[in-house]
């Protein structure tokens, strides 16, 4: 969920009234948002960097509001206020219109075929006769940043560039060129650089370096020129300095370049609909490229019965149309049965199915006003047999004096191989490709390392330590669709001044008794000497149940004990649980 920070006083000014914190929290809840935090820049800096750094910072109160991930129309003050005002019936949802310039032709953006190799899509629009103030300007820049971080997937899917139209002249050309052939003065720099130079310049830039990888390895880089060859931008990295917008900018040229054209259109629609209210003719951005249908309104028809049934309410068709209208979904009862016609504005790209309309109706109705009911679904419950067996065993193992440990399913290769005296290639382990640290290299193939690490962390506890765990390990298995399967294991360790093999052996006998398996070769269980590098020579036995091996027990090898930073003898048991189902 993205969090939007807005200045409280600006918000209240725009809403036309003030609220107490509690009242505003309540309003957010009703509208499906969450007032996450009440803070100030000063407070944030002091929390993150210490009081000394915060001394000069602003202490204007900020509301941090959590917004649903797909509600891009609520990512700035303008959109938030518009949504809330319509919700509170204080404003009618605006209609966004595209208009042509009074004099002359609409602007044009020509897309050349070279872009296909790197970033094939572009859409653009013009906001005419806009009036910026410092606050509007800040909000404009911040919305770009919010969109870049969310729907644009850190500029990889879409990148936004905004320009002062009066410093450049159309038609514009979106093309792609070899990095050495692109040369311009980038934003806030004093001299010209080639694209190649820029890429190395920005390697150390704390902000821009995160975007370099998007085009770095491509043979050509995307670039937008005006009719005089002035570079507007080199998306998705940086704009040119020439066309940068200022508080005095009157006409804003907005371009979105993309690898996903649907998202580019959504992003452009968001930029223009949010800020068109500051145009001399509010809500009327000028459209640039005619190929795409920005500012498209869509009409859906659904029945009030559908809404009533899905939400669990019983409201009239007219009332439901009113509820939806309050959510910026202009709706009316068509008079044909209980049909409702719903208009989805370009700001609501999240509405892609009737169920989204239903959800908005529920928000407008108020979740807390919906009567809670109990589904009459009659069912008989079943436990998953493996979990049922596990639950029963755990109880009795604790009753046998052993304490349950709970360890991570992920660990290092070393834990399951080297430390146990085994080779990683023999473990059948599933390997993780992107672990942030060595602790997450593999899924464990044995429970033993976890228990030994638990003992190592608890060496101060009185001896003996008697631990067990029943949990899943993961093994590669070609017969499964994903190539791996879980295997439920039971592992126990005894750590004391003497090895206590008889204690672990006794626990095995007790476990078999609980599982109704008798001590006998053939039909029952028996153990027999085995060689295993994890165990001390001559002190390891394999456990057989009905002639099949299910696990091993024994006294751990001193090397293993040392590698887990332990100092005392230790005996252990690990076996499969699934054969006993």
């Amino acid at each position, binding site marked *: 969920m993205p969090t939007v920070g807005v200045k409280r006083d600006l918000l209240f000014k725009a809403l036309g009234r003030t609220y107490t914190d509690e009242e505003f929290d309540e309003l957010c809840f009703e509208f499906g948002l969450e007032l996450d935090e009440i803070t100030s820049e000063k407070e944030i800096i002091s929390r993150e960097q210490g009081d000394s750094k915060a001394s000069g910072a602003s202490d204007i109160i900020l509301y941090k509001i959590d917004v649903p991930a797909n509600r891009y129309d609520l990512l700035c003050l303008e959109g938030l206020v518009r949504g809330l005002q319509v919700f509170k019936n204080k404003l009618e949802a605006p209609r966004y219109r595209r208009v042509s310039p009074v004099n002359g032709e609409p602007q044009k953006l020509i897309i050349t075929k070279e872009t296909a190799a790197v970033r094939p899509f572009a859409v653009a629009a013009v906001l005419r006769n806009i009036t910026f103030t410092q606050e509007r300007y800040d909000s404009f820049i911040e919305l770009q940043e919010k969109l870049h971080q969310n729907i644009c*997937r850190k500029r990889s899917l879409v990148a936004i560039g905004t320009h002062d139209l009066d410093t450049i002249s159309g038609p514009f050309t979106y093309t792609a060129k070899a990095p050495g052939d692109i040369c311009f003065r980038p934003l806030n720099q004093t001299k010209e650089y080639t694209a190649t130079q820029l890429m190395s310049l920005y390697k150390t830039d704390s902000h821009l370096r995160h975007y370099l990888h998007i085009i770095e390895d491509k043979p050509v880089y995307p670039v937008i020129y005006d009719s005089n060859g002035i570079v507007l931008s080199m998306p998705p990295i940086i704009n040119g300095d020439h066309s940068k917008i200022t508080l005095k900018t009157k006409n804003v040229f907005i371009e979105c370049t993309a690898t*996903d054209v649907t998202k580019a259109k959504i992003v452009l629609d968001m930029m223009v609909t949010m800020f068109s209210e500051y145009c001399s003719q509010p809500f009327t951005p000028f459209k640039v490229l005619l190929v795409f249908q920005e500012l498209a309104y869509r009409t859906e028809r659904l029945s009030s019965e559908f809404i009533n049934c899905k*939400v669990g309410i019983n409201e009239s068709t007219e009332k439901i149309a009113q509820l939806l209208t309050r959510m910026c979904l202009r709706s009316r009862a068509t008079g044909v049965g209980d049909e409702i016609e719903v208009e989805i504005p370009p700001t609501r790209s999240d509405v892609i199915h009737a169920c989204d309309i239903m959800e908005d109706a529920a928000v407008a109705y108020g979740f807390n006003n919906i009567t809670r009911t109990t589904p009459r679904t009659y069912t008989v419950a079943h436990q998953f047999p493996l979990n049922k067996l596990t639950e029963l065993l755990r109880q009795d193992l604790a009753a046998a004096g052993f304490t349950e440990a709970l360890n991570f*399913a992920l660990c290092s290769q070393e834990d399951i191989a080297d430390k146990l005296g085994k080779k990683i290639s023999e473990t059948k382990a599933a390997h993780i490709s992107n672990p942030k640290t060595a602790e997450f290299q593999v899924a464990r193939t044995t429970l033993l390392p976890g228990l030994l690490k638990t003992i190592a962390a608890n060496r101060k506890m009185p001896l003996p330590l008697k631990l067990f765990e029943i949990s899943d390990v993961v093994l590669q298995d070609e017969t499964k669709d994903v190539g791996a399967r879980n295997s439920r294991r039971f592992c126990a360790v005894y750590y004391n001044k003497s090895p206590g093999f008889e204690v672990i052996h006794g626990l095995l006998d007790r476990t078999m008794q609980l599982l109704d398996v008798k001590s006998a070769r053939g039909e029952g269980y028996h153990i027999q000497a085995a060689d295993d590098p994890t165990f001390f020579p001559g002190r390891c036995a394999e456990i057989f149940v009905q002639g099949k091996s299910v696990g091993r027990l024994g006294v751990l090898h001193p090397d293993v004990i040392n590698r887990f930073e332990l100092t005392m003898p230790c005996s252990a048991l690990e076996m499969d649980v699934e054969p006993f189902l």
Partner: protein
Amino acid sequence: MADTGVVEALLRRVEKVDDGVDSLEVATSLELDHQVIVGAVKSLQAVGDVISAELRSSKHWELTDEGREIAEHGSHEARVFGSIPVEGLPQSELMKLSFGKIGFSKAMSNKWIRLDKAHEGGPRIFRTVESIEDQVREKLLLLQKGNASQLEEKEKNELKKRKLLSEVTVKTYWIMKGNSFSTTVTKQETELTAEMITNGSWKEKKFKPYNFEAMGVAPDCGHLHPLMKVRTQFRQIFLEMGFTEMPTNNFIESSFWNFDSLFQPQQHPARDQHDTFFLSDPALAHDFPQDYLERVKKVHSEGGFGSQGYKYDWKIEEAKKNILRTHTTAVSARMLYKLAQQKFTPVKYFSIDRVFRNETLDATHLAEFHQIEGVVADYGLTLGDLMGVLHQFFTKLGLKKWVEVGNSGIFRPEMLLPMGLPEDVSVIAWGLSLERPTMIKYGINNIRELVGHKVNLQMVYDKCGWTDFTFRM
């Protein structure tokens, strides 16, 4: 038990007086150390109500060792005076005496003696008065006889300052007859023995009372892990509500079942390397239900089933990527798909198992945690039903502020219809982490104190209270 002779002697003394006797007095008259009498009092108290003893404390002056020496031999200055003959004494001779140094300066300040530094043969000391009166000794003798009241406080304090006198607090018992007073006491037994039961001697014996204030001996037992105990409770709640447990023993899942089948677009941030663990070996999954996969592809890329879709280029390569599942909803998707392949019957499912996130670790986030999930699929379920089920679930749990601990909702048609579920079937679901409510219940702030090998086993031994989860209907 104190010496029987002393106890009986004490009891005989107490028998003679009706209004009681002081323990110190008894000690003096029996010529015993006071502590011996105190011991006898304590052992009699333990027997029962033989005597009643009230603890009293009193202060009195006592001579120090040095004080007693002076009372016997005289003050240092008087002894100095006494050692000087008429013809005087060399100073060096005087200083050899044990009391010489202190006594000399005191006697000088009393002007009893004088020092002739210029005397031939070294400095020499002479008497200056005929006789003296050793007041210090006389005062100490008075105190020693117990006549402290004849001295003024100022005088006593002066002696105290000279470390000849100290004020001590004496604790004594005022002993009176108890309700079951008797001059003879029986020896008490500490424990009942098998022999006593056999020969019946327990009937005649008295037993030493137990100290019920002490703690018992901790039982030598095993313990279940607190998080697993809470898991058991959640399982119980679901089972009581008629939910069937899903088989969630598959940590490795394909992106297809974990994301695509749930209508999560392929560019969704959750599918990023920064949020999800991908596998290098086995890297890819295979064997997808082909026609279902085609429907999933279509609903993502083109829409359908009443949906606009996401309108992007859906790639099978992305769906094949194996990951560590990020939620158990991947299993719910498999179960619902399976359900759709047969004649639909309503179901209620639950699971509690591990899920994995490749996120930044902090006090409340680990790379793996347990997800609790509940799913109900039936004809015509409503949002009201979802809220009703949640209410029942969290009421059983005893959590009032449930909105903050989990997520809930109705599965989207774009997820359910491609599976082949009937159009009028709705599926409601909710999920929460097992760790969060457990941390709240046990008052643990750092998740590492609850899960993993670094936990303190003492915590596992101690965090075992059941109350919050058990005694609610």
